[in-house]
C-alpha cells in the first residue's frame, strides 16, 4: 500500500511541477486573446512605436533593448567568467585558487538588488559626473552592472563544467610535461567546446530574464539607443513599468505578448542547450 | 537435493547476449563456486538468481529457473513472484563492501526494521546474533554507533555479510567477496564462509582457481557467457 502511496504522491507533485509551465503559458495566451484577435494590434505589436494613447503598442524597441543589454552584458561576463574559471582550476597557486572559489561563491550570492543599488549610487554618478557620459542611467551602466553580476555565476558554472575533464587529464598532462595553462588552453577547452557553449546559453537566459538591474539602472526610455551612453528599455522592465496600467487596456494586453516573447526566448535557449547535450551524449 | 536449478537460461541486455543456455543444478547447504575470467558471465549469472537485472534497461531473461526455498519450489521469473520477497530470501554480498551511509548499527538496523520489523528487544538480539555469525561482534560491540566507513576493508565486508545474514536468507550469493581485501582479511572471510556453508546454500563468484579448489564443494566454470564442462 505504501508503495502506491509514495508513487502516487510523487507523480502528483511531478505533475504539478510539470504543469506549471503549461498553466502559465495557457493563462498568458488566454489573457492575451483580445490581442490575437485584432490583426491591426498584432501588426502594431511588431512595430517600434509605443504610444498606447494612440493605439500603438510596438514592442520592437524593448525586444531589441533586451537583446542589446543581454548581449553586451555577456560580452563582459563570459570572457571574464572563463578567465576566472581557469584561474580557479589551476592557473592560480593552490591556496589562492581555493580563496578564489570562496570569493566567487560570495560574489554570486550577492543579491541582485544590492548590485543594482550600488550601481545607482556609485556607477551611475561616476559615469555622469566624472566621465561626463550623458545622464548615467544608460545601456552602458546596465550592461556593466549586469555583466559584473553575471561574471561569478558564469565562472562557477564553467569551473563546474570543466573541472571533471581537467582532473581526469591532469595526470596525463603532467606526464607529458604540459604546464597547467597549456593543458587547460590546448586540451581541456577544445575537448569541452559543448560545455562552453551550453554555459553561454544558460547565462544568456539569466541575462535576458533579469528585471531589477534593467529597471533600476537602464533609464527605461522607450528608445533604441544609438550609443551605449543612452538609455534603453528591456522587455522585463517594460512589463514591470506597464503593470501599473489599466488591466483592461491594450497596453496591459501588450505585456502578455512581452511575456510570451520572453518565454519563447527561454524555450529557444533550452532546446538549443538540450540538443547540444544530446549530440554530445551520442558522440560518447 | 539441489537448491538451485536452471535450464536453458539466457540473459541479454539490449543486443548483447551475456548468458546463453545455461543449464545447471547447484546443491543445497553446500558452497558452489562460479569460476571464469572477467567478462565471462559469472556475476551476471549470480544477479539473475535474485532478479537484480530487473531495473537494468533492456535486460531480458529467458529459460527456466527454479529455487527451492523452505522446501517449496519457487519460480523467480513467474508473474506471481515478487522480486522484493525473493531478494529477502536470497541474500547477497558484493565485490566491494556496499555500506549504507551511517553507523555500523544503522547498517544492520535499517534493513531488519524495514523487512521484518521485530520488537525492540528482539532487534538487539538479532543484531548481536548476525554480528557473531559474521565473526565481527567482538570487534564492534563497543562501537555500534561509529560510522561504518571507519571499519577496515575486511571488517566492512564482514559487516555486509552480517547485514545479509540478519534477514535470515536461505541462499547467500557472494560476488568475489575477497577481491578487494589483503591476504589476512581474505583468509578470515574464507574461514567464515566455510563455517556458514552448513547452514546456508552458498553461491560464490571467484576468479581465483586456487581459492575455488580450496573451498568449493562444486565448481562451475564460465566462459563467454556459457558453461565450460569441467
Amino acid at each position, binding site marked *: 500500500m505504501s508503495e502506491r502511496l*509514495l508513487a502516487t504522491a510523487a507523480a502528483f507533485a511531478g505533475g504539478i511541477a510539470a504543469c506549471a509551465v503549461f498553466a*502559465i503559458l495557457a493563462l498568458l495566451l488566454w489573457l492575451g486573446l483580445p490581442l490575437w484577435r485584432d490583426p491591426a494590434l498584432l501588426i502594431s505589436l511588431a512595430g517600434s512605436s509605443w504610444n498606447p494613447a494612440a493605439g500603438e503598442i510596438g514592442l520592437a524597441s524593448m525586444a531589441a533593448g533586451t537583446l542589446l543589454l543581454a548581449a553586451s552584458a555577456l560580452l563582459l561576463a563570459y570572457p571574464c567568467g572563463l*578567465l576566472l574559471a581557469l584561474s580557479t582550476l589551476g592557473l592560480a597557486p593552490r591556496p589562492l585558487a581555493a580563496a578564489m572559489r570562496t*570569493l566567487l561563491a560570495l560574489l554570486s550570492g550577492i543579491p541582485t538588488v544590492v548590485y543594482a543599488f550600488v550601481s545607482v549610487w556609485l556607477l551611475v554618478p561616476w559615469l555622469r559626473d566624472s566621465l561626463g557620459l550623458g545622464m548615467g542611467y544608460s545601456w552602458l551602466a546596465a550592461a556593466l552592472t549586469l555583466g559584473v553580476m553575471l561574471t561569478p555565476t558564469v565562472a562557477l558554472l564553467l569551473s563546474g563544467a570543466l573541472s571533471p575533464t581537467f582532473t581526469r587529464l591532469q595526470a596525463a598532462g603532467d606526464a607529458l610535461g604540459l604546464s597547467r595553462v597549456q593543458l587547460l588552453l590546448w586540451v581541456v577547452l577544445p575537448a569541452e567546446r559543448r560545455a562552453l557553449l551550453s554555459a553561454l546559453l544558460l547565462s544568456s537566459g539569466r541575462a535576458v530574464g533579469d528585471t531589477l538591474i534593467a529597471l533600476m539602472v537602464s533609464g527605461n526610455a522607450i528608445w533604441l539607443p544609438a550609443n551605449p551612453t543612452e538609455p534603453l528599455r528591456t522587455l522585463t522592465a517594460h512589463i514591470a513599468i506597464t503593470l501599473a496600467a489599466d488591466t483592461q487596456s491594450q497596453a496591459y494586453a501588450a505585456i502578455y505578448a512581452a511575456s510570451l516573447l520572453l518565454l519563447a526566448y527561454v524555450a529557444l535557449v533550452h532546446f538549443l542547450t538540450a540538443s547540444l547535450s544530446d549530440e554530445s551524449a551520442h558522440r560518447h | 537435493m539441489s537448491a538451485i536449478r536452471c535450464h536453458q537460461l539466457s540473459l541479454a541486455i539490449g543486443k548483447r547476449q551475456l548468458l546463453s543456455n545455461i543449464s545447471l543444478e547447484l546443491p543445497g547447504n553446500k558452497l558452489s563456486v562460479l569460476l571464469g575470467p572477467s567478462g565471462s558471465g559469472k556475476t551476471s549469472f549470480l544477479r539473475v538468481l535474485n532478479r537484480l537485472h530487473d531495473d537494468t534497461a533492456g535486460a531480458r531473461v529467458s529459460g527456466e529457473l527454479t529455487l527451492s526455498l523452505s522446501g517449496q519450489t519457487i519460480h523467480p521469473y513467474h508473474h506471481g513472484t515478487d522480486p522484493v520477497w525473493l531478494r529477502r530470501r536470497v541474500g547477497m554480498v558484493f565485490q566491494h563492501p556496499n555500506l549504507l551511509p551511517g553507523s555500523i548499527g544503522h547498517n544492520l538496523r535499517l534493513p531488519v526494521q524495514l523487512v521484518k520489523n521485530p520488537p525492540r528487544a528482539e532487534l538487539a538480539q538479532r543484531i548481536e546474533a548476525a554480528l557473531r555469525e559474521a565473526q565481527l561482534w567482538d570487534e564492534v560491540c563497543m562501537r555500534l554507533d561509529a560510522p561504518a566507513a571507519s571499519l577496515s576493508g575486511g571488517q566492512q565486508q564482514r559487516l*555486509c555479510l552480517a547485514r545479509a545474514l540478519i534477514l535470515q536468507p536461505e541462499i547467500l*550469493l557472494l560476488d568475489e567477496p575477497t577481491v578487494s581485501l589483503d591476504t589476512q582479511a581474505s583468509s578470515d572471510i574464507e574461514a567464515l564462509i566455510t563455517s556458514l556453508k552448513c547452514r546456508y546454500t552458498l553461491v560464490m563468484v571467484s576468479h581465483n582457481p586456487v581459492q575455488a579448489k580450496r573451498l568449493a564443494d562444486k565448481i562451475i566454470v564460465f566462459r563467454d557467457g556459457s558453461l565450460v564442462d569441467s
Partner: protein
Amino acid sequence: MNPRTVIERTVVALSTLLAAAFAGLLLLILGFLLMGAWPALNGRLLFGDAPAWPALSGQVPVWDGLWPALAGSLMLVTLAIGIALPLSIAAGIHQAEYARGRRGRLAYTLVDLLAGMPSIVMGLTGFMLILLLRNILPEANTSLLLAACCVALLVLPYLVQATRVSLHQLPAELRLSAQALGLSQSQAILHVYLPAASPGILSGCILAIGRALEDVAVILLTGVVAETGLPGSLFDKFEALPFFIMVTAAEYRDEAQLARAFAAALLLMSLSALLFATARQLQKRSLS
C-alpha cells in the same frame, strides 16, 4: 616568441588581474555600503524608536526601522520554502525514480523551462491568477500567502533539479545493495536513497533560500508594500528587504532613510553570506 606562448602568458596575466579586480570589487561594494550605512548603524537600526521586545513581536508598530522588512522577508522565505520543499522533493523523486522514457524526458524539459522563466512573468501570472480567483472567492487578495506561493513556484524547479540530480548521482552499488537487501522501492527511496542524497538536496535548498530572499520581481505584484509593519496574518500585505532597498534607492525622503537602505543592503548581503557559510559547513560535514 611562439604565438602560443604569448597567448598562454596573456591568459595567465589577465586571469590574475581579473581575480584581483573582483576581490577588489567585493571590498569596494562592502566598503561603499558600510560607508553609506554608517549613520544608520546604531541601536535604532531595526526598531527605530520603538522598544525592542514589544516591537519584535509586533505589539508596537515600528517606524523608521528595518525590522518589519527583515521579518517580512524571513516569513516570506520560510513560507515559500515550506511550500516548495515537500512538493519538489516528491517531484524530484518522481523524475529520478518513477518517470521513464518519453514522459520522463518531457517532465525534465518542463521543469527546466520553469527554471528559466523570468521572475517578472512569474509575478504577473500570480497577479492575474488572484484577479481571476476573486471572481470565485471575493476575499482573495494579494498577500503574504500569495507572494509565498509565487516565490515557491520560482524556487520549485531549482529544488526539483537538485533532488533529481542528487538521486541520479547516487552510486549504482548503493541501489544494488538496497535491492539485494530486499527493500521495496518505496523503502529504498525513503530510507536509503533520500538520506544518501540529502546533502545535495540541502545545498539546493540553500540556493533556493538565496533566490527567494533576493527576489523583487515576483513579490512586486503579489503583496509587498512600502510600509505596513509586521503582517498580522498570512492574508496581510508585508514589507521585504529587497523591495525596501529598491524603493528607497529611488525615492528616499531624507538622508536617514537612505542610510537605512544602505544598511538594508548590507544586512541582505550578510544574510546571503550566512547562507553561503552554512552551505560550506554542510558540505564539509557530508564529506567527512
